C-alpha cells in the first residue's frame, strides 16, 4: 500500500474526532513548548549573568591574593599594578582597588552612614567600562599627590544633592573634606556589589587618610584589574603577568601568592549555581512530554477499541495486518508531530512573551527546537506502536461482530 494512501486514511481517522485529536495533541504541545520555554528561561538567566559580569569591563583580568594562602594578602601592592602598566604591552589600562572601612559621609545637612569608599587609580573608568556621567574622574597626577577629590556613585549623588549639581561641592568623608569632581554613570548591582551606592577616591588618598587598621596598612591593594586590548591575547598576557608578578614577589609561578582570573571564570562559577535549576526545569519539561506521550497511547487504545468494527471491515475489504498497524501508527505519529510543530511555535511565542511581559530575560536555545520536536516524533512512534499492534492483531470475524 502506498504511503500517501495510508497517510490519507490516517488523516481521515483523525478528522473523525477533531476535538479529541486536538486534546490528545495538547499533551505534546505543552510538553514541547515547556521544553523550549524552560530552556529559554534558563539560558536567558545565564546570559543575563554573563552580561552583568561582562559589564564590569570587557577582556578583564582580575588579580587578587591567592585565596587561603597565609600572608598572601600582604604582598599584593600598588607597585605591582604600576609595574604591570609599565612592562606589559597590549593592555588598555591597569586599575588597582583598595576598600577602606566604610565611612559616614555628610553634605547639605544630610548624613549617610556606612558608605563604602573605594580607592582606585585613574584608569578605573576605562578598565571597568564604567564611565563618568557628570564632571570627570581624577588624573594619575591627582592620585599621586593625594588630591582631596571624590567621584560619587549616582545613587549617592542623588541622596546628597537631589536635583542640585554636585560638581564642585564639598562633602565630608569620615573626618576629611573632599571636593566632588564627578558622578559615575548608573551601573546597578552586579554580583552583590552596589556600584551606584559607593564613592570613588584616589587610592593614594585612601592609603593616607582612610586606612587605619594595621592589617591593611602600607600600599596593599585588594585587587588589580587589567584590561587587555584584544581578547585573543588573554592567555599570553596572563602568562606574562604571572611571570612578572612571580619575579616581583620572589615566588615560583606555579606556587604564586596571587591568582589571576578572567570574567569567564566568574561566569562559570555563577552558572554552576544555575545548573541545578536548569536541569530541574529540563526534567519537568521532559516529564510533561512523557505524560503527553502516555496520553497519546491512552487515546489510541480507546480509539482502537471504539473503531474495532471499522478495523474488521477494513480487514474484510483487504487491509492486511500491516496496513492496519501502519494506519494507527501513522495516526499517532501525525498527532505527535502536529503537537510537536504547534508546540515549537507556541514555545517560541511563549518564550518571547515571557521575555516581554514576564520581566524575565529569555533566550531561545536553537538546539532545543530540533531536540523537542524529535522527542515528540519518537514519543509518537513509541507510544503509538502498542495500540497499533493491538489493532493489527484483531481477527476480522471478531472485529466485525464487535458492538
Amino acid at each position, binding site marked *: 500500500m502506498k504511503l500517501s494512501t495510508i497517510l490519507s*486514511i490516517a488523516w481521515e481517522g483523525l478528522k473523525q474526532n477533531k476535538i479529541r485529536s486536538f486534546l490528545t495533541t495538547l499533551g505534546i504541545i505543552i510538553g514541547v513548548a515547556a521544553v523550549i520555554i524552560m530552556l529559554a528561561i534558563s539560558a536567558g538567566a545565564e546570559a543575563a549573568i554573563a552580561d552583568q559580569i561582562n559589564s564590569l569591563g570587557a577582556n578583564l583580568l582580575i588579580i587578587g591574593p591567592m585565596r587561603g594562602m597565609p600572608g598572601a594578602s600582604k604582598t599584593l601592592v600598588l607597585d605591582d599594578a604600576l609595574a604591570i602598566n609599565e612592562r606589559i604591552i597590549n593592555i588598555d589600562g591597569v586599575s588597582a582597588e583598595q576598600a577602606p572601612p566604610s565611612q559616614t559621609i555628610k553634605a547639605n545637612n544630610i548624613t549617610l552612614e556606612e558608605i563604602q569608599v573605594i580607592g582606585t587609580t585613574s584608569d578605573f573608568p576605562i578598565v571597568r567600562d564604567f564611565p563618568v556621567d557628570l564632571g570627570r574622574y581624577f588624573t594619575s597626577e591627582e592620585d599621586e599627590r593625594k588630591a582631596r577629590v571624590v567621584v560619587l556613585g549616582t545613587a549617592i549623588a542623588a541622596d546628597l544633592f537631589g536635583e542640585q549639581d554636585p560638581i564642585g561641592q564639598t562633602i565630608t568623608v569620615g573626618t576629611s573634606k573632599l571636593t566632588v569632581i564627578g558622578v559615575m554613570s548608573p551601573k546597578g548591582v552586579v554580583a552583590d556589589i552596589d556600584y551606584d551606592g559607593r564613592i570613588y577616591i584616589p587610592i593614594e588618598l585612601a592609603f593616607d587618610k582612610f586606612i587605619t587598621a594595621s592589617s591593611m596598612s602600607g600600599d596593599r591593594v585588594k585587587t588589580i584589574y587589567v584590561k587587555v586590548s584584544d581578547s585573543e591575547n588573554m592567555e599570553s598576557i596572563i602568562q606574562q603577568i604571572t611571570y612578572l608578578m612571580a619575579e616581583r614577589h620572589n615566588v615560583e609561578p606555579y606556587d604564586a601568592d596571587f591568582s589571576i582570573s578572567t570574567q569567564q571564570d566568574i561566569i562559570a562559577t555563577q552558572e554552576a549555581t544555575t545548573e541545578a535549576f536548569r536541569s530541574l526545569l529540563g526534567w519537568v519539561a521532559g516529564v510533561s512530554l512523557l505524560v503527553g506521550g502516555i496520553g497519546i497511547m491512552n487515546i489510541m487504545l480507546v480509539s482502537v477499541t471504539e473503531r474495532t468494527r471499522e478495523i474488521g471491515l477494513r480487514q474484510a475489504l483487504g487491509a492486511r495486518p500491516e496496513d492496519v498497524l501502519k494506519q494507527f501508527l501513522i495516526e499517532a505519529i501525525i498527532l505527535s508531530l502536529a503537537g510537536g510543530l504547534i508546540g515549537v511555535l507556541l514555545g517560541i511565542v511563549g518564550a518571547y512573551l515571557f521575555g516581554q511581559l514576564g520581566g524575565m530575560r529569555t533566550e531561545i536555545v536553537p538546539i532545543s527546537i530540533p531536540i523537542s520536536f524529535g522527542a515528540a516524533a519518537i514519543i509518537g512512534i513509541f507510544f503509538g506502536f502498542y495500540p497499533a499492534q493491538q489493532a493489527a492483531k484483531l481477527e476480522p470475524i471478531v472485529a466485525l461482530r464487535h458492538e
Partner: protein
Amino acid sequence: MSIQTENQTITQNTEIVSADNPIIQIRDMTKVYGSDRAETHALRGISIDIYSGEFVAIMGPSGSGKSTFMNILGCLDRPTAGSYILGDEDVSELDLGDLAEVRNEKIGFIFQSFNLLPRLTALENVVLPMLYDARERWSADEKVKRAIAGLKSVGLEDRMDHLPSELSGGQQQRVAIARALVNEPVIIFADEPTGNLDTKSSYEVMVILKSLHEQGRTIVMVTHEPDIATYAQRVICVRDGLIVKNEGETPCR
C-alpha cells in the same frame, strides 16, 4: 408467482454453468474452536463445489455452523482441516496477510448490518476496497470514476456525498453492494443481506442481486428467510456442522 418463473429459468442456466470448473471446491472441511477440554466442532466435514455464475443460498438454524462456514468461505477465518480452493488457489493454508489480499482481489462482501464507515460519504465508502488493492490497477481519478459508476448502477448517483446516517437502510445496502462490486470480485458473499431491511427494501436489494446473477456473477448468500432463499437457484442446508441438503430450490425444513 413471477419469482417462481424466474427460478425456473435460472435452474436451466445451471446446467450450462456446471460444465465449467467449480469456482469453489471444498473437501472435508472441519473447524474446531477451543482446545482440549472444551472443543466445539463447528464444521464436521463439509465437501461442496460451487460453480461460476451460480446463485447459492446457505440456510440453517442458528448454531448449525452456517456462520462459521460463511466466514471460512469469505476467507475471514481458516479451517482446522480440509482443503478450500477458491478460483485456482488453495486458500486453506494462506497466512493472514495473503488472505487479506485474496479477500480484496476475489471477494465482495455484503453484510447484514451494511458495515459502511459512518464518517465517510457513500462515494468514499465505495472507494475503500480500491485503496487496499495491492495490484494498483487504477489511478486515484479512475478509482473515483469507478465508484461513481458503481453508485449509478445501484441508482444512488444523487446520494454520493451523503453520509450513511443520511441514507435509508435499503440505500445503505445498495452502497454496500456497489462497494462489493467495485474491485471486480470473482464471487460475492452476502451474509443475511436483507436481515435489517423492511419488505420493500429487501425486495429492491434482492432484485439487484438477481440482476447481478443474471449478468453472470457468482453469489453465495446466507439467509434464514425462506422467501429470500427462493431467489437463489440452489439452497444448501447446514445442520450440526454438516451439509444436509445440497440441491433444489425449496428451503430447508
